[in-house]
């Protein structure tokens, strides 16, 4: 066979694959010779940002990663946290931004597929998905079809596999016009003692391949610019990965069943950089080597080279290290489910990888220098020159008609109901969804226990753009607050750090500051980071996205009997506002969407106050004192009150000593609660003891929302506001 391995390998080709001159020299130094094309491809994949975290690593170590509940922190396929009753939660979030911009349906679908495999490869059965999506302006080129494609892709994949998509967020900003964000989160559960890891061990143990066949999907585009490939071969080369959720579902069942045979030593899915990252990472974690015979890999079409097989990103594939002599038990399971399974190599001693194709050695390299000792960069970081101007206090126009301002805000895509999105996602399959999409946090029943798992994802990219340190703190604090609104105590978080080009010092500064802000909040609020993902180079034609460190947090509700709703449920309840109101409009939805102003310091984040508020909310929920709890975030008090009236169309009449603009202030550490009049005094006493400012501002009832403020009165019909809010998104999308 004439392999492209005959092609010339030099610094120029290395650069085409994304390796810098320095990195190429480092590789030739390690090998003591010129690498083969396959070796070069393997190295460029392992040393990519995605696999090596080379630009972000020095900052990521600021995160607290351990805690009383943490069984597995970053470094495995997903984090593992003890949630009680013998169960563990296994979760991770990952980005699929670039593929989703190129082909939104398949990009988003395969993003969901990848994150599900990260979870079930650890022996956990996935039980929930979240999606954090950022789109550009609706009128930007392709934007409506990007939105439609992403939503359909997520829906089709998750719905078919049968994992409920229970929440997430959808935001809009022009910085995403040329680079949308699709961050998918999956959570699975397993018995504490049944967790599987991707740590190869046992010299002589066979390495198995299971799942779909390997094709030319997703092989990095840069490598195609090579004179050894002619126009004809390029035509045959799909770079968009195509997902098959049916195979994923079957693979999921087969993997969980195969794990029960007791014959699996280690298992990992083939995600980014496919067979390369899975085999090298498993060997690296276990301190062993491996030998692969690529002739035994099941192929979709003949004639793939070693390079292509090692770099293919075909979906729905797993690598398994089985116990020697027992692999039959494993292969029988995959065969019963109608999946491809083959023994493709074995574990060796000595920490080297040896890869053969067509009887010849295509790669022979030491593993550790490529994985553990991959390049690490301390890239320069510097704040933008115009930071002071960006953070200058904005002029805040006072709304003439706050009722009209509220209606206009509720009709923006940012604040409008996202039901159009989540109604396309199956959120009730698996019969565990106690609180689905649309609330502050989703809540899932941990079957057979009184316990619930609460999930939320949060970030405010505008805040992060104006002050990345404060934005990082705010993302974590808001997630804690959302969990507290359903009575959940956080047990861990995972993140997706989406940023622009790290070679730009301003971007590096954003990354560093966001991470530091998140880390401060994690420490103050006792939430460890157990897994995560970094997505860099999110820019188009030199224009970077807003810094977007998405946080997905998991909490435990000890007893589901007490969960309050995120909305008013009955008339005659007392409405209490918790937290301190300040005039804080920097980066607010009011300024941005109604006045086109994106300026100022974002609201201050007082982490002690956030901790006190969260503890109070959990205590009140635990004592069944609340009928409703809803956090204040984008749009401030006015929007939170309106949202609280929508769920059951129960109105409210409140009075607050605030100016008209302050109704839309986004001061943090605030929440709205409702309780029966009989409990109001106890709630206020609790708040006082907890050191949380609390003020009874009115009561629920009727079909109107009435807010008396300093100098005026906002009045609106709940039904009319609800109509505006619920129809805005499909109307704006033209559906």
């Amino acid at each position: 066979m004439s392999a492209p391995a005959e092609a010339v390998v030099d610094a120029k080709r290395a650069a085409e694959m994304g390796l810098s001159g320095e990195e190429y020299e480092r590789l030739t130094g390690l090998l003591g010779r010129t690498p083969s094309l396959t070796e070069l491809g393997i190295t460029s994949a392992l040393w990519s940002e995605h696999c090596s975290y080379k630009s972000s690593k020095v900052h990521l170590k600021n995160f607290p990663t351990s805690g009383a509940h943490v069984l597995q922190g970053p470094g495995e396929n997903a984090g593992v946290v003890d949630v009680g009753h013998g169960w563990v939660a296994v979760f991770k979030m990952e980005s699929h931004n670039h593929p989703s911009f190129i082909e939104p349906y398949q990009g988003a679908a395969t993003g969901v597929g990848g994150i599900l495999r990260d979870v079930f490869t650890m022996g956990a059965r996935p039980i929930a998905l979240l999606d954090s999506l950022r789109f550009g302006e609706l009128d930007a080129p392709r934007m409506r079809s990007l939105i439609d494609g992403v939503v359909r892709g997520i829906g089709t994949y998750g719905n078919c596999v049968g994992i409920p998509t229970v929440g997430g967020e959808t935001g809009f900003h022009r910085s995403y016009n040329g680079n949308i964000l699709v961050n998918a989160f999956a959570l699975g559960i397993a018995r504490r003692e049944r967790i599987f890891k991707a740590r190869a061990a046992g010299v002589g143990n066979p390495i198995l391949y299971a799942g779909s066949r390997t094709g030319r999907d997703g092989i990095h585009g840069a490598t195609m610019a090579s004179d050894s490939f002619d126009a004809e071969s390029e035509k045959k080369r799909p770079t968009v990965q195509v997902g098959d959720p049916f195979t994923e579902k079957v693979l999921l069942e087969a993997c969980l069943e195969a794990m029960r045979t007791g014959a699996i030593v280690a298992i990992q899915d083939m995600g980014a950089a496919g067979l390369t990252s899975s085999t090298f990472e498993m060997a690296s974690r276990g301190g062993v080597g491996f030998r692969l015979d690529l002739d035994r890999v099941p192929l979709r079409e003949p004639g793939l080279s070693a390079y292509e097989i090692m770099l293919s990103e075909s979906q729905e594939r797993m690598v398994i290290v089985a116990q020697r002599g027992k692999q039959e038990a494993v292969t029988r399971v995959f065969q019963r489910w109608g999946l491809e399974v083959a023994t493709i190599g074995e574990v060796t001693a000595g920490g080297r990888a040896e890869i053969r194709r067509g009887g010849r050695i295509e790669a022979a390299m030491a593993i550790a220098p490529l994985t553990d000792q991959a390049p690490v960069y301390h890239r320069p970081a510097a704040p933008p020159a115009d930071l002071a101007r960006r953070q200058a206090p904005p002029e805040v126009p006072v709304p003439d008609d706050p009722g009209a301002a509220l209606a206009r805000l509720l009709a923006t895509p940012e604040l409008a109901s996202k039901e159009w999105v989540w109604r396309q996602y199956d959120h009730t399959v698996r019969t565990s969804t106690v609180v689905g999409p649309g609330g502050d946090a989703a809540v899932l029943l941990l079957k057979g226990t009184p316990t619930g798992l609460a999930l939320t994802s949060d970030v405010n990219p505008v805040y992060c753009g104006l002050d990345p340190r404060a934005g990082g703190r705010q993302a974590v604090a808001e997630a804690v607050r959302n969990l507290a609104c359903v009575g959940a105590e956080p047990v861990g978080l995972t993140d997706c750090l989406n940023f622009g080009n790290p070679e730009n010092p301003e971007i590096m500064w954003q990354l560093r500051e966001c991470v530091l802000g998140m880390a401060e909040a994690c420490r103050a609020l006792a939430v460890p980071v157990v897994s995560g993902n970094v997505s860099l180079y999110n820019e188009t034609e030199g224009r970077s996205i807003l810094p977007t460190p998405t946080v997905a947090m998991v909490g435990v509700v000890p007893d589901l009997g007490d969960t309050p709703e995120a909305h008013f449920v009955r008339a005659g309840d007392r409405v209490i506002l918790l937290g301190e109101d300040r005039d804080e409009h920097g980066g607010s939805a009011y300024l941005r969407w109604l006045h086109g102003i994106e300026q100022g310091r974002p609201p201050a984040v007082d982490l002690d106050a956030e901790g006190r508020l969260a503890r109070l909310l959990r205590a009140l929920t635990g004592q069944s004192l609340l009928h409703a709890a809803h956090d204040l975030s984008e749009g401030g008090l006015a929007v939170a009150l309106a949202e609280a009236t929508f769920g059951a169309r129960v109105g409210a009449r409140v009075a607050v000593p605030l100016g008209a603009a302050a109704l839309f202030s986004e001061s943090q550490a605030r929440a709205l609660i409702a309780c029966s009049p009989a409990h109001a005094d106890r709630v206020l006493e609790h708040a006082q003891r907890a050191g949380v400012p609390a003020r009874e501002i009115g009561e629920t009832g009727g079909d109107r929302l009435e807010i008396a403020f300093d100098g005026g009165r906002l009045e609106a019909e709940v039904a009319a506001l609800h109509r505006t809010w619920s129809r805005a998104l499909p109307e704006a999308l033209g559906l």
Partner: protein
Amino acid sequence: MRCGVVVFPGSNCDHDVYHVLKHVLDQEVRFLWHDEPRLHGSELVVLPGGWSYGDYLRGGALAALSPVMGAVREHAERGGLVLGICNGFQVLTEAKLLPGALRPNRGQRFECRDVYLRVERADTPFTREYAAGQVLRMPIAHGEGNYEHFPYELDRLERDRLVALRYVAPDGALADEWNVNGSARAIAGLANAGGNVFGLMPHPERCAEEVLGNSDGLALFAGAVRGAAQLAGAGR
């Protein structure tokens, strides 16, 4: 009562149905594998929701030809109870055990939401625990639930009283906006002439426990279990 839940590759509500029968109703339940033509003595057979064999041709089309469906057909012909939910309903129509077909939703999108159903017949084993005219709230989650048949066949379904559940407004009245997938005659659930084969697009297993905020679907399984027990008692 021995219950069997069929598992096709791609079934994804099999565990949910199992859970309700086993843990909520305390019945003996086993999974029935798609390529074995045996029901292992199951008296109630449930075809669950999901994407059987990926449903890449039409919902339920490939599953209708699977080995286990031969045994299901014999069971149904002997008067045994068969319940098809969502994809299971599609399988039953593709297998011609129930009339008609299910097409893509009117809105061309997957719909996951609560709907309201009016019980049209309370004299099948599956609806006996409800009252005729009762309105139930139940979740749907499907992309192809738009019931369709030839007009004269629809008339015959009505004449033979095969329509068991219809999509209605919360007050029980027929209303186009509540017929969310555009089904002909707002048909949400059907029985065969004998009443022993029953299919519906909504998911009763997803509303069978109070902790999930709705238990309107439990009586459907309870009725089926009781009906199957009576059949067994009658020495069928």
